[in-house]
């Protein structure tokens, strides 16, 4: 059984089909990129997979559970237990320190554990920034805190919506390296990106166009390492 399966999923806003009859499967431990022009439905799809929105039509099976039929409360539970989210804007709670932001995910999930949260920050190379507020961190550092927060509860699947959209190349490489580490530990990754260099690192790239699955590309020589072609 696949970890994630979309069966004929559509999201319809009035006349607009933000997602139009999309079917796809993602296996456990896979690293998938999603590309496509602006407005093609990438974020819409991520919101549905991330249990923050429901499809208008079709089924979404996550770990065998049809999340398109669940109520809000159950969706929150599923999201908390199975999913780690990373966004383009480095969303952190502004008045909590880096380590407190990581602990927040533990708090909602089970038990806050400062030691474990510090270890997660160490993994993303921010051990010395643990006591800083988000406003005292650079964009790249903030995004690494988000990565630490996303991985703290060992989610089945990490969803990243343009995680490098606001980062320079150096930070982009750091974040992609982190993805590589997570992937090699068996975490499933779905990464939305506009950046072909980031997309090409993944094992598979899906391209959306006007809400439809336009094309699919397998990366034959997958290494999980980013190559800048300039």
């Amino acid at each position, binding site marked *: 059984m696949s970890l994630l399966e979309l069966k004929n999923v559509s999201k319809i806003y009035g006349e607009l089909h933000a997602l139009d009859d999309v079917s796809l499967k993602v296996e456990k431990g896979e690293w998938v990129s999603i590309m496509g022009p602006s407005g093609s439905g990438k974020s819409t799809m991520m919101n549905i997979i991330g249990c923050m929105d429901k499809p208008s039509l079709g089924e979404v099976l996550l770990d065998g559970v049809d999340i398109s039929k669940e109520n809000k409360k159950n969706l929150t539970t599923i999201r908390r237990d199975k999913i780690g*989210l990373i966004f383009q804007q480095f*969303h952190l709670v502004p008045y*909590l320190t880096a380590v407190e932001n990581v602990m927040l995910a533990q708090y909602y999930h089970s038990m806050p554990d400062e030691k474990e949260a510090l270890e997660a920050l160490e993994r993303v190379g921010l051990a010395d920034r643990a006591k800083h507020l988000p406003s005292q961190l650079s964009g790249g550092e903030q995004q690494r805190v988000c990565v630490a*927060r996303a991985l703290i509860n060992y989610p089945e699947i990490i969803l990243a919506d343009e995680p490098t959209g606001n980062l320079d190349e150096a930070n982009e490489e750091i974040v992609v390296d982190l993805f590589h580490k997570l992937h090699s530990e068996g975490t499933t990754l779905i990464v939305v990106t506009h950046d072909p260099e980031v997309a090409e690192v993944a094992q598979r790239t899906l391209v959306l166009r006007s809400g439809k699955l336009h094309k699919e590309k397998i990366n034959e020589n997958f290494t999980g390492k980013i190559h800048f072609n300039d």
Partner: protein
Amino acid sequence: MKKRRMFIRMITASLMRRRSRMVVALLSVAIGATILSGLVSIYYDVPRQMGAEFRNYGANMIFTASDGEMSLSDVEAAASKISDEQLVGLAPFRYENVRINDIPVVASGTVPEGVKATSPYWKVEGNWFTKSGELMVGANVAESFRIKAGDMIEVTYTPTEEDGTEAELDNSVFFTVTGIIETGGPEEDYIYMTLEDLATLTETDGRIDVAELSVSATSDELADYVSGISAGSAAVSASLVKRVTASEATVLTKLQALVLLVTIVVLALTMICVATTMTAVVAERRKEIGLRKAIGASDKSIIEEFMGEGMLLGLFGGILGSVLGYLFAQQVSLNVFSSSIVFRPLLVPITVIASIAVTGISSLMPIRSATEVDPALVLKGE
């Protein structure tokens, strides 16, 4: 329990690190709590303060004739048992039926200085009478006879014969009306003149029906005076008077009702203020709420966190308010009653609990709207 530690760490961080934002909210809670605890202090202290005021000025003892008649000298002899410092005023009254324009009216002979001391609440339009040939009329009398201050009126006295028929003799004297009395009491139905004029008019001398005294003394001392005078004088019987205490109570009830009303209004205003502030806080933090939900916060946790913040705010505001409230009540008391207020320790926890409850209740609606934030919408780039 580590979860609770994180909870407390979170809500204190939210208040402490967003200080400039929360100062406004804290201020509105603190001001509300200040006024509340201040007014409650005053509410409870007013009876004490007002009691002192009234006892200092009003009549609180009366002399009546034990049997037969009492004369002015009996009254003065009895009053001399009270020390000069404690005797604030002595007003003897003699009542007779007289006529104005052939209509019966009660005339009272008295000593104006004494009445001024024992009944400071009398309102006189015009002037007090001071000497023979002058009188004051009650407001009701003035109205029925269309008398104004400055008018001359003729007062006649017709003595009653032994067999009940009216005597031939008519005594009549002209008086200048110096003022009209307004008291809201029976005084408005009487006319007042000097004891001497009433004696001249009736051609009988010396009888006193009742004397009102204002004595500044504790209730124990008053009781001692009353028994001492009644025992020591054959003609005079002293008793403590209830009339002033009754009017004192009415004024008190009205004052307390006013304070209560103001308290309720302030309470309502505080709640509106807190609700508005919390609504703004929630609106401002929509993004954060969405984020918290996205990383797994349930509606329950969101409510807990905002409630926690609101109640913490109520706690700080309540503590601040009970201190400021005491100072406020003290200031009011010093300015209005020229005496200091009693500190009531119980008022501190009451203010704090009330303040927490008020912030909690007024945060309910805004916090409900926080749970309605959709994580997907908030995170959609912006």
